[in-house]
């Protein structure tokens, strides 16, 4: 019923302070007369947050709290992200804005979908196991694009110091000014290693320790394998310890040659030589036994969160953080012992099959 594009009369624009949305002319279909835009509709139509029933807290990130919630209109289960606004004298937080941009552009079954922005494309840059969700149908979903950066065009001026320490690529630790999608591929290598080992691969507590863990595992890099290495800013102040051996094979003695090749490819020190996502899919690791199964054939598991109360499960969209996989990595508060056992055996089963 609103005729927003209609030219308002000149007296309508006289007030310079009020929001411009007030200046639209609204003609009621019922009476045919002009009317004021109701206060609640000034910002346009977005749904009232009360239409969602909070079920439980899923987790707490840097920028806010995520709840599992039920849409009261259709019963769908959604993730509700509440963004902290208390200290935002500069308006909406930049991470939230960028996250919304990425989610709006992503239509993929492996990514948590954006349904609604309630007021009140990319480098993920924060890939870690606690940001991966596994539905009870065995579908992996990536969540939390709070630090994602748009890559529609060449990436410029990306915010430094992103990515959880354990999954941080060496070029980031050594303060390279360049950030490329190779960052995510390093994180993918760390996640693959974590899934294979059942525990975090490189759990550093400080940036220095993180670098040492990387060197312990992969050997000290040099200009020969990574041409920009000695020019990296961090190396102007200190030197890495010397450790000549690549210990991936010792770390994963049971892993096939193809599996080790894939890990080594993901852990190339030089970001330019590191595997791209497309190259990984070509890896022969995915063509040998055990073959990746159709997602529909992934083992499903019972929905534990719902069991806590007396209510029966109403949904098939329950997301469980993979981080509960014995890693101790999670910042989740819910105790889900049975699920972590189940996921642990799932991974082991895959390894042994």
């Amino acid at each position, binding site marked *: 019923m609103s005729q*927003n*594009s209609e*030219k*308002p*009369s*000149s007296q*309508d*624009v*006289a*007030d*310079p*302070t009020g*929001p*411009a*949305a007030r*200046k*639209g002319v609204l003609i009621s279909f019922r009476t045919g007369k002009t009317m004021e835009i109701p206060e609640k509709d*000034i*910002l*346009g139509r*977005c749904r009232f947050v009360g239409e969602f029933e909070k079920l439980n807290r899923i987790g707490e990130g840097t920028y806010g709290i995520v709840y599992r919630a039920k849409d009261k209109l259709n019963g769908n289960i959604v993730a509700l992200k509440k963004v902290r606004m208390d200290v935002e*004298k*500069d*308006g*909406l937080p*930049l991470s939230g*804005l*960028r996250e*919304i*941009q990425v989610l*709006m*552009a992503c239509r993929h079954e492996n990514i948590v979908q954006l349904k609604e*922005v309630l*007021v009140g*494309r990319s480098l993920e840059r924060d890939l870690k196991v606690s940001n991966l969700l596994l539905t009870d149908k065995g579908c992996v979903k990536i969540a939390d694009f709070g630090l994602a950066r*748009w*890559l*529609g*065009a*060449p*990436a*410029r*001026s*990306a*915010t*430094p110091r992103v990515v959880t320490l354990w999954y941080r690529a060496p070029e980031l630790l050594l303060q390279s*000014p*360049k*950030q*490329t*999608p*190779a960052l995510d591929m390093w994180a993918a290598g760390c996640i693959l290693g974590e899934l294979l080992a059942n525990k975090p691969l490189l759990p550093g507590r400080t940036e220095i320790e993180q670098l040492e863990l990387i060197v312990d595992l992969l050997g000290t890099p040099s200009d020969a394998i990574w041409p920009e290495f000695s020019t990296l800013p961090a190396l102007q102040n200190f030197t890495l310890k010397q450790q000549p051996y690549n210990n991936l094979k010792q770390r994963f003695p049971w892993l096939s040659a193809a599996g080790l090749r894939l890990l080594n490819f993901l852990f190339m020190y030089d970001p*330019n030589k590191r595997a*791209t996502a497309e190259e990984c899919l070509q890896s022969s690791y995915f063509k040998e036994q055990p073959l990746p199964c159709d997602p529909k054939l992934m083992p499903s598991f019972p929905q534990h969160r719902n069991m806590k109360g007396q209510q029966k499960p109403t949904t098939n969209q329950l997301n469980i953080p993979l981080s509960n996989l014995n890693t101790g990595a999670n910042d989740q508060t819910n105790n889900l012992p049975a699920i972590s056992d189940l996921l642990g055996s799932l991974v082991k089963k895959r390894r042994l099959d």
Partner: protein
Amino acid sequence: PNSGNHSGGSSGAVDMCVAGPDRALDRDPRLLLNLLTLERSHALHTDYFQHVQIDIQPFMRKVVTTWMLEVCEEQQCEEQVFPLAVSYMDRFLAQRAISRQQLQLLAVTSMLLASKFRQCQPLSVDLLCAYTDNSVHPNEVRQWEVMLLQRLNWQLSIATAFDFVEPFLARVPWGRGNALVRTHAL
């Protein structure tokens, strides 16, 4: 809109981390296709001076965009901030009539959003208001930020002409040889 006293002063908001061209993207033919689709979906179809605005005249847009460019240059903004901000402003103006007194407020809000989208360190609300000689109040900017976002359907990621420069340069043999080619293309 006045050009302000520029009391925001020294250019503190320099982005130090600049990523170079991304070879993985250069090779990908989907990049240009996506950019073209994106550009088409956000093209304006109306002459808003004719059909929407009653108070705003073309020369006012010129004055305010010149002021925006000055602010962006003095703050050494990332090069995309200015064209993006102008694009947000145009998309808003194609939908809603505002008064000339509100034009600079809209410009400030557009620059705030564009800098949040493109820069490590966005321009601060206080700084932007200082550039208006305090004719715009920070509270207004925070209020308009949400309103502008709603009008843009929260869609900040849009293609500007700048986005096409790198993919084009990557496709011609002389594109990357001389830095001046890029400078003049922008």
